[in-house]
């Protein structure tokens, strides 16, 4: 399998504190990688570091699709095919969901055919069991927690990334919605052979997915790498032995 993303010796810090102390991570094409760890271990920081969200200082190397992206701003990484779903999606009052998506696809340098765009949006809204008028509503404004998570998946489907980093995508989803979202992610992966990095402390979202590798993160370091069997151990025994 060809390598899609390789991160080496990744450090992230704020002005007074180092949060990641040198993380190595690899994601191959079409692979599903899970990052687990207790609260405060640095899971979200890792997700945001891979994407290059500018709230920390970073060092280390990240290559994506053969390109050195460590110095690239997050928008350039997005244009190359990386996607990060937010744990807590940001509301942008006045900006309709559809309008945001249309502008973003154009910013990616793709031409938007309005008719086709509307049909695709409607199809995905239905698939995610979202109200058909959600596209006209303001981005993440007055949506429930679960709906916001679905909107993140909607954006993934519309933007068609090669690597989707999904940060706690199932928090706020009820059992049925989590099952639906898991299935939609799986279908997208089957269709595009994209890679997934699932950051979670809850295994529910993995039900439809074939996990290739598991990274356990503790105190800003990868403490353990294993296969799907390791998730079973963690489920039984917690992170004590991991």
């Amino acid at each position, binding site marked *: 399998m060809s390598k899609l993303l390789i991160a080496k010796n990744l450090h992230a810090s704020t002005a007074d504190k180092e949060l990641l102390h040198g993380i190595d991570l690899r994601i191959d094409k079409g692979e599903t990688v899970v990052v687990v760890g207790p609260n405060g271990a640095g899971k979200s920081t890792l997700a945001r570091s891979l994407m290059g969200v500018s709230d920390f200082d970073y060092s280390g190397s990240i290559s994506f699709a053969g390109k050195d992206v460590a110095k690239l701003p997050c928008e350039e990484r997005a244009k190359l095919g990386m996607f990060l779903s937010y744990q807590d999606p940001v509301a942008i009052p006045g900006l309709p969901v559809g309008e945001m998506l249309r502008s973003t696809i154009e910013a990616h340098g793709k031409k938007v055919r309005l008719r086709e765009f509307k049909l695709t949006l409607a199809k995905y809204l239905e698939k995610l069991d979202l109200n058909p008028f959600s596209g006209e509503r303001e981005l993440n404004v007055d949506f429930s927690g679960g709906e916001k998570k679905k909107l993140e998946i909607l954006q993934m489907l519309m*933007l068609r990334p090669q690597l989707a980093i999904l940060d706690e995508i199932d928090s706020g989803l009820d059992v049925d919605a989590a099952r639906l979202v898991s299935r939609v992610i799986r279908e997208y992966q089957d269709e595009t052979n994209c890679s997934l990095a699932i950051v979670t402390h809850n295994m529910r979202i993995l039900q439809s997915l074939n996990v290739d590798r598991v990274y356990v993160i503790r105190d800003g370091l990868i403490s353990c790498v294993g296969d799907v069997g390791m998730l079973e151990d963690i489920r039984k025994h917690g992170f004590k032995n991991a």
Partner: protein
Amino acid sequence: MASKTPKGLTPEIVREISARKNEPKWMLEFRLRSLRKYLAMPMPSWGPDLSELDIDNIQSYVKPRKEMVRNWKDVPDDIRQTFEDLGIPEAERAGLAGVGAQFDSELVYHNVKSAVANQGVYYDSIENAMHSKYRGMVHRYFMQLVPPEDHKFAALHGAVWSGGSFVYVPPNTSVQFPLQSYFRFNAPGAGQFEHTLIIVDEGADLHFIEGCSAPKYNIANLHAGCVEIFVKKNASVKYSTVENWSKNMYNLNTKRAIVEAGGKMEWVTGSFGSHVSMLYPMAILNGVGASMEYTGVTFAGEGKDLDTGVKVVHLAPRTTSYINAKSLAKDGGKNTFRSLVKVTGRAKNAKSFTDCQSLMLDSKSTSNTVPKFDISCSSADIAHEANVGKISEREINYLRTRGLSEDEARALIVRGFTNDVSKELPFEYAAEMNNLIRLEMQENM
């Protein structure tokens, strides 16, 4: 004419204007009364700095248009460029720039006039209305809502007004499409001291659109227009404005409506241009259940001092007002939102809500919020929210992770911020307003 004009505005100049229009006697007397008021009144002591307005040479602003730009090539480059950026057709550019050429809109205007005439609607210049069968109506309503005593520039307007529109919509008539004052811009003196008088009779409704997003160019840099709207019982009027005056303009405009029982007045305004603006559309809610909505966006860019807002007076029971104001300041621009909500003791169970948000796009700029609430009614529900701040880094970062550049993200957030106004406008105006926002966002970036 004498080679030397006397300093200041004189009765002779006013008589000349009136004579040229062949006005009835009452109008000449009205002009002369206004002139006396104007000369006696002080300049406003509050708001933006007007000291650069050459008030001693006010007659130079009032002279007929023959001394203004006549030639397309005399129009400054930046204005011509903006016309092109906005995609305004060439023929219309000339007219908008004050070149005074004949252009297609004249034809369109006549078509509109006859289309609405079939519904019994009268739409013409106020000069023509003064000599039509509606002359009695003009006499009865002209500057009754905004009397010359109101303020110095209302008095000036009363003395030297020229051009504008008169609209009368008969009872229970719904005007099918928006009327646009745009078609009248090439009238002599229009776009400077124009008077708009709109009377919408019981149960009728109208959408009137003023101006256009193209920067109207005038050598004379004072605009003191006046809009008066009479909304009768159960009638409704929407008055939309997108204005982008050239950067030398003092825009001191007065707009006012009086709304009778069950009537509804909607103000939609986008203010982008001018050097200084003082503009506060007002509604007097005079009858039971009358209502006003104001939706406005003001974008103060470099070298601009835009003092805008709204006034509403609740005089009757169950009247309601809703104010939604958005302001942006950028590149050293100065923005002031000024409002008055007055609720008298008679306005039992009145409701008023003001939501006023300001976005600072850099720290060179200034943003002020100056609302006033004067409430004398115990059963009235009054609420107000105001926020000032900048675009949050979180919002920008979120959009950047989806692949937008920082500038693109900012522009999109600003577009969302101003969406309340654009969605109130007809499609082509909304598109032009979004274009204007885009141009403002690009400047100096």
